[in-house]
Structure formats: C-alpha cells, structure tokens
C-alpha cells in the first residue's frame, strides 16, 4: 500500500503548494491545511503501514500479535495533527483580520511591509 500512498502524498503536496501560490488568502489557508495533512501522512507512511493490528494491548491479558502497527509514528502524527490545528486556527483568524484590515482577498495588495 505504501507506494500508492507515496503517490497520494505527492499529489497532496502538489495541490497544497499550488493553493499556497494563489493570490487569494483563503486559498492560502486551504493550502496550509493540505500541506500539514501531507506531512502527517508522510510520517505515517514512511514508518510502515500495518493492517488490523492496532497498538493496543488486549485487556484480557492475551499477548500481542507478532506484527503490530508502530505506535511511535502514530503518537508523533497525533502531536503533529494537534499542533497543525493550533497553527491553522491561528492562521484562519489571521486571514479574517487581514481581510478586515486590507479589505480585499488578494495577497498582492499586501506588500507594504517589504521593500
């Protein structure tokens, strides 16, 4: 399954980048959502994917199976998901405020800070 996922992740990266390069700040935020998901999937995929063997130790005292899913990347991804959510909720409100202040949904109008 991993090779398929590699392609899927590539596609999500590509779409994310494309969206981030748009002039609309709304699209930018959607791009940010996509790219965070891509990174999470990457960690999950590269560590190896296992079917039907969640890293849960049976409560009844049975031993674990020989092959179970690697719990560590799952924990990492969980952390990453939540962090990404924090960043995104910040970004979402940020674009809302930016839109309020600037008045257009166009990144090209937002270049006063530079030059």
């Amino acid at each position, binding site marked *: 399954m991993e090779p398929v996922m590699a392609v899927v992740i590539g596609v999500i990266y590509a779409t994310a980048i494309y969206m981030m390069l748009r002039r609309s700040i709304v699209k930018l935020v959607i791009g940010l959502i996509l790219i965070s998901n891509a990174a999470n999937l990457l960690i999950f*995929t590269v560590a190896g994917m296992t079917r039907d063997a969640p890293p849960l130790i049976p409560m009844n005292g049975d031993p674990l199976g020989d092959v179970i899913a690697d719990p560590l990347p799952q924990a990492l991804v969980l952390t990453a998901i939540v*962090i990404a959510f924090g960043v995104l909720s910040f970004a979402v409100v940020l674009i809302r405020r930016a839109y309020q202040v600037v008045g257009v949904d166009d990144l090209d109008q937002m270049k006063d800070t530079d030059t």
Partner: protein
Amino acid sequence: MQIAVLTGFVLAILVPFLSRWCGSRTGMVLALYPAAVALWLVSLAPAVLQSGGIYFEQAWAPSLGLSLSFWLDGLSLLFGLLISGIGTLIILYASGYLHGHPQIARFYVLILSFMSSMLGVVMADGLMTLFVFWELTSITSYMLIGFNHEDAAARKSALQGLLVTFTGGLALLSGLILLNVVGGSWSLQTLLDDGEALREHALYLPMLLCLLGGAFTKSAQFPFHFWLPNAMAAPTPVSAYLHSATMVKAGIYLMARLQPGLGGTEVWMTLLCIVGAITMVVGAFLAIRFTGIKKVLAYSTVMALGTLTMLLGIGGEAAMIAFVSFLTAHSLYKGALFMVAGALDHETGTKDIDEMGGLRRAMPVTALCAFVAALSLGGVIPLFGFVAKELMFEAVLDAPRFTGFLIGMSLLASVLVVAAAGIVALRPFFGALKTTPKTPHEAPLSMLAGPCVLAGLSLLLGFMPWLAGDGLLSAAASAVAGSEVVTDLYLWHGINTALMMSMFSLCIGLLVCWRWPDVRGVIHRFSPVLDRGPEAGYWKLMDLLVRVSEWQTRLLQSGYMRNYLILTLLSFVGLTGYTLLARHGPVLEFELDVRLQEVVVALVTAASAVVACMMRSRLAAVAAAGVMGFGIALIFLLFSAPDLAITQLLIETLTVILLILVLFRMPQFSSLSTPMERVRDMLVAVGTGVLMTLLILTILGQGHLFTSISEYMIDNSEPLGHGHNIVNVILVDFRALDTLGEIFVLSLAAIGVLAMLRLQAKEKKAP
C-alpha cells in the same frame, strides 16, 4: 608603559566630571597628561638608546593574539615623543580655539582617546594590539572629523575618511593574520627578527599587498589621498594633530616598522617608490590648486607623506636618515602651520587665502611663526626643513633604481612645495590689508604657544641638527634600517648637486608663488580632467552601492509572497532534488500489496485534494478539503491507528467549522492570476509533489535499516507505563514532554486568536 597608554582612555572617561570642576581650565589640566608622557619618554630615552629597545610584556587575550605587550625602540620613541609633545601643544591650543564651545568636553574626550590610541599604535608589539589601536584611531578620527556634526559636509567627509581608512584596516587585518600564519608569532619583534623567512614565503606578495593596503590608505597615498584634504572639515586643532603630525603617519610608521622584516625586496621598492613619488607630485600639485588655507596645507601633507613613502622604498642608510629627519621636520613645521591657519581662521573668520592680506601688522607673532615654519616647509636654509630636504635629495640621487624618475619627481614636487609654502606664509600677511569677516587681532596666548614652540624648534634644529640627530634620530633610523646607522647631521653640506637642486626649486617655486593667480587660472582649465580623479571613483562606488542595493531589494523583497514562496520552494526542490537524483539516484523498486477498498479511499483522498484546488466556490473548496481530511481519517483507521482516526475526524470537523465561521465573512473567489502564472505555479507545485513522492519511494525502497526504538515502548507500555493503549502511553508518559509542548502550542494559538479579535475590537471602542 601600559599605564602611559591606557591612562588616556581613563582620563577621557573622566573628562565630563573634570570639566565640571575645572571649567575653562580643563584644557590646561588635560595637557598635563601628554606632557607627562613626553617627559617620561625623555626619561626612558637613554635606556632605549643604549639597549636598542625596552620591552614590556603582559597577556590580554593570548588565543586571539592580543597582548598588552609594548616595545619601545628608537622608532617608537621618536613617534611617541612627536605624539605626546605635539599633543600637549594641541590640547592647549584647542582650549583657546574652542573656548566657550558647548561641546568642548566631548572634544577633549575624543582627542585624548585618539592620543592614547596613537601611542598604542606606535608602541604595540602584538600584531593584534597594533590593529586594535589602529582601528581606534580611525574611529576617533571619524568622530573628530565630524565634530561639527550638524554640518552635512563634515558628516560626509567623516564618513569618507572612515570608509577609506577602514577598508585599509580590513586589508591590514588580513595582512596581519597572514603575517601570523606565515611567521607563526603574534609578536612584531619576533617576526621581524626573522625577515628572511617572511620574504621568501609563498604568501609574501599577498601579505605585503594587504599590509601596504592598510598603510597606504591610512597615510593617504595616491590613489587614496582624497580623504585627507576632505578631513579638513574637522576643527583646526584636529587637522593640525591628526592630519599632519600623527594619524596619517600611522601608515608611515607601519611601513617603517615593517621595513627591516619585509622591506628591501623588488616588489617593496617598486611599489613604495612609484606610489610615493606619484603621491608626492600629486599632493604638491593639488596644493597650489586651491585657495582654502587648510586645503593647501593638507595637500602639502599628502606630498610629505609621499616623500616619506618614497624614501622607505629607496632603502639604504642614507634614505633612512633622510626619512627620520624629514618625518621630524615635517611634524614640526606642519603642526605649526596648521595652528597658524587655525589662528587666521579663528581671528579673521575666513579660510580663503584670497580673502586675506596684510595681516602682519594685526597678527605679528602669528606672521612670524608662519614665516619660519614656511621656510622650513620650503626647505630654506637655515631651518631643519632644509637639512631634511638636502638629505632627501641626496638619498634620491643615490637611489638604486628608478633614479632618473625619482629625481625628476622630487624636483618637481619641491618646486611646487616652495610655491605652496610661499602661498601660505606670504600671501595672508603681506600685501594690502583686506577686509575680513572678523576684525583681525592677535590670537590668544594659548593659541600662540604651539606654533611658537614648533617654529622655534624648527629653527633650533636647523642650526644644531646634531641635537636630535646624534641620539634620537640615529636610534630611529637604526630601527627602520634594521641595523646600526650612524646619523651625522649638519646644516651645511657644501656646494653639491643637492644644494643646486634646492636652489633651483626655490627660485622656480617663488616664481610660481608670485604668479599664483595666473597659475591657478591655467590649472583651472584642466579642472574637468582633474575632477575625474580617484575621488570621483569613490563617489561612483558609493552611488553604485546604493543602486545595487536598491535593485536587489526590488528583486528579492518584492513584497509578493508568491515570489518568496517560489524562491524558497525552488531552492528546496533544487537542492534536495539534486542530492537525491544526482548523488543517490531514486530507487523505484517496490512490491504492491493493495486491497480494493484501500485504493478507493486513497484515490478519493487524492482526488478531493485536486478538486479542492479547482473549485470556484469557497464552500465547495472547503468541503473538498474536508472530504480529503475524512479520507485520511479512514486511511488511519484502515491501517491500525484508531486514535489517529478519531483525532483526525474531530480536528477535521472543527477545522471546517472554523473555516465556515470565517469564510462567511470573506468574498467569493475571483480569478486573479493569469494563465501564465498558473502554469508557472503548477510547475513548481508538481515539481515539489514529484520530488516528495520520489523521496518517499526511495526511503521505502531502502527499508528500515535498524530496529525502531518503539519496540521498547511496545514491550514496556504495560509493565512500566500501566496502560494498554500504547499510543496514549507514549503521549502521556514516554514522550510527555512533546505533549506538554503541544498543549502550550494550542493555548498559544488561543491567546493569539483572542488577542487578534479582542484587542482591536477594544481599541475601536476606546478612541
């Protein structure tokens, strides 16, 4: 010795307090410091002359090559005496010149710091110590040139001086580091003792060029001479001190210091002779071009600096004797002349020679000093300047190389210098009295002391040159030559070629002086050519700097985030891609083990991401992104990650809620980009996507190289972590620190959101 040097800095810090107690007498009090240093140096003189040098060693930062080690030999002693002696007079002079100036305390601070730095330069033994003091002189001189800081021209000149000398300083720094790398020591004394090794090293040429770069810029050699006359924006005491007697001589000092170690080679001779000779003539020529008295003097200083460099280039005993004599003579008469110029400026209110005339009655003492000093400058018997000039001609006549060229150049220069001397000494004082902005009268005593003493010394040493020559100058000359030199100075050398040359230049020079306005008229016709000198290059360069930087800013800081993103991504794709494809090569071997439902979910996920890109409606785009998120949750579920699946699901829901809350207030998408831009963006996007896919495939193809540390967690989750959900145990126990950071991230986001929304709302309410 350390104390002698460092006291100046301490004193400089104390000046603000001192000036509160002493009021206008501060200058007198402060002048005691250089006077004390001078006396102390005199007291050391016998010991130095006997032993060839006194050495003080003290560590400062040895790993950096910094020490507080000082070395006092004949050369240092000569320079030290000039610095402290003239320094005493200058401080006295300044107390008169700047009397009542509101920032006089700041002036004292700076001039004292400068004086100490200068003493540090000439006595330092450590290479880096030398450099530290060297740069300090640049900085203090910057502050001094810009002393009248509300004047834009002064600021400009100060910057010019700083940039030129600092550039040289950088060259010097590299040169000194090379010297250390080549010679393996930080001590000048040690290094110069083994000159042979230095001269024969492969890095000799770059090292020499760097060192000379520092020396040339500092001592205003052609083509870096232009900053010096501009530095005349400084108050006159500063010009008199820094730009005649001391700072510009730091470069000369450095060359003289290095002469025994690095000198005598073909490159050395060629460079110093040619550059020195050109500087000499250019300086002398430009001196008679201007009518500002300080400018004339400044250019004649350039001429003197050129002469000194040339003499160092010629090498040999005679040249060394000429060198030290010329140096001393120049310091004396030029200091005096500058102080006279300051007195004129101070009492008449103008600096233009053309506006002065007939001042000898109003300012008799000043006139006398000017006359005596100018005679020395012109090299007229019986002044010390004459002795020095004779020696210079003799050295040139004996020059081992370029003899004809050097003779011609020095003759030309001396003609022009005689003219310049005449201009400054005769024109303001003789002829008809002209009305000046201020009614002229004699300068106060404090301002007369300096020129009188210096002019007097020029006269005294002219009659009795052996006073200086037998002890001090021979020791200095020996230090420069690197071997024992016996200096036997006398006023009258008999009728010889040198004397003829002197006579010749005197006559022609006076003629030029007499017809000065006509000469200026002729020169004026060549102004367009002359204005294209090196200084024009400096301004071009500054202009270029600003333009390049503006161009770069426009190019890189366009303000368009897209450009930033594209550049960043291109560097990412380029570098990573290159490393992957060229250095490793992508590995595309894999086994496909898939099930239908998995592929369907994967395809839906990918497709919804693509759809999210293409949607024209905000809601549809958000919905598509949501579908993708749910697809990912399903993938997590299918591949044994229930916690992830639930979290992803919940987060996705909340994200969509947030987005909808916000999008509600945003406009619909409109088509903003051109098709070309779309294609470009698509290329970047696809490039990144392909790279990521290749990377993942390659890593997967490589497989796990080691067993994962998660084995341990699986084994110990239950016995040690007391939990059955291994992921949760990792989160709250094994890697609790991550989770701790993570909840802080969440709360930070919340604070940010709150502040963004509330702070502004609140400020709107409260006008």
